[in-house]
């Protein structure tokens, strides 16, 4: 009888374990079948965060009515994006300044007109150093 009692207890225990397993599986299945179903306002919060954090896409610049009004600002903005954009205006300005400086030097040394050159220090030095060349310089 003792054995019968132990067997009976064992069977009850096994049955109980099976029932507990079955119940747990059923509860898990029901939980899986219940979607979280986020509320619309919660999803809107998520999307607002996404919009705020999103890196800017390449935006096409709108067409402007007065494109040439603020060239310097455009060049500056371009330079902020890419320093190479500064190369051509700086080069242009340097070339112009060089031209002005060379023009002044040429004028002082008589390269602008023949008579001016004849009276210049350079012409006198040439005539003194190279008498043969004096004939080529007007006034000597």
């Amino acid at each position, binding site marked *: 009888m003792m054995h019968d009692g132990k067997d009976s207890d064992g069977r009850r225990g096994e*049955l*109980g*374990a099976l*029932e*507990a*397993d*079955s*119940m*747990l599986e*059923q*509860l*898990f299945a*029901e*939980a*899986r079948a*219940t*979607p*979280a*179903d*986020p*509320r619309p306002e*919660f*999803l809107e*919060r*998520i*999307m607002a*965060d*996404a*919009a705020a*954090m*999103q*890196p*800017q*896409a*390449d935006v096409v610049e709108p067409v402007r009515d007065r494109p040439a009004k603020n060239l310097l600002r455009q060049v500056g903005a371009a330079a902020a994006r890419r320093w190479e954009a500064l190369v051509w205006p700086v080069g242009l300005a340097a070339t112009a300044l060089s031209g002005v400086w060379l023009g002044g030097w040429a004028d002082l040394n008589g390269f602008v007109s023949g008579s001016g050159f004849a009276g210049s220090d350079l012409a006198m030095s040439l005539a003194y150093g190279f008498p043969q060349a004096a004939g080529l310089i007007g006034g000597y």
Partner: protein
Amino acid sequence: MALDSQSPSGDAELLARYASGDRTAASVLTARLVPPALAVAQRLLGDRAEAEDVVQEAMLRLWRAAPTWEVGQARVSTWLYRVVVNLCTDRFRRRVPQPRDDLPDRPDTAPGQEARLQAQARAEALQSALETLPERQHQAVVLRDIEGLPNPQIAEILGVSVEAVESLAARGRRGLKQALSGRQAELGFKDDA
């Protein structure tokens, strides 16, 4: 539905598109990632509002990480689950335990009402039992038995070995059965003594 059932590479591509300014990518990612992440957070915290806060924070971190996300570094879903689980852990440790509300009295006996009440009672019983488990067991059971994630992914999320996941889940299931013992009849299961 687990995040993993969606294409992991698709998530990474969507994240890259988001980072390059594609506005629709964010909405697609949100639709794919948020519901399962919210389900996990709710199971871990037992509170919807707190779960929403956690998932919002996790998604915010994902948006921040998007520009520097390296394809192949991790699955987006695994990364998000890990952040959600860690944030839940932080909250769970900080908060003061609150008594759970009992089911409200509902005299309505309309057809279907009893079944709904019983389903709600079962869901609450499972949640209560889950909350009796140690933290890691709780997480392992939720991710494996409810979310249906594979053990290797759970191991990656929890930062433990696959063997540890199996052990945690097995101990968790035993703990749940113990917590639910004696409630079979109350919850409408047959063959209860």
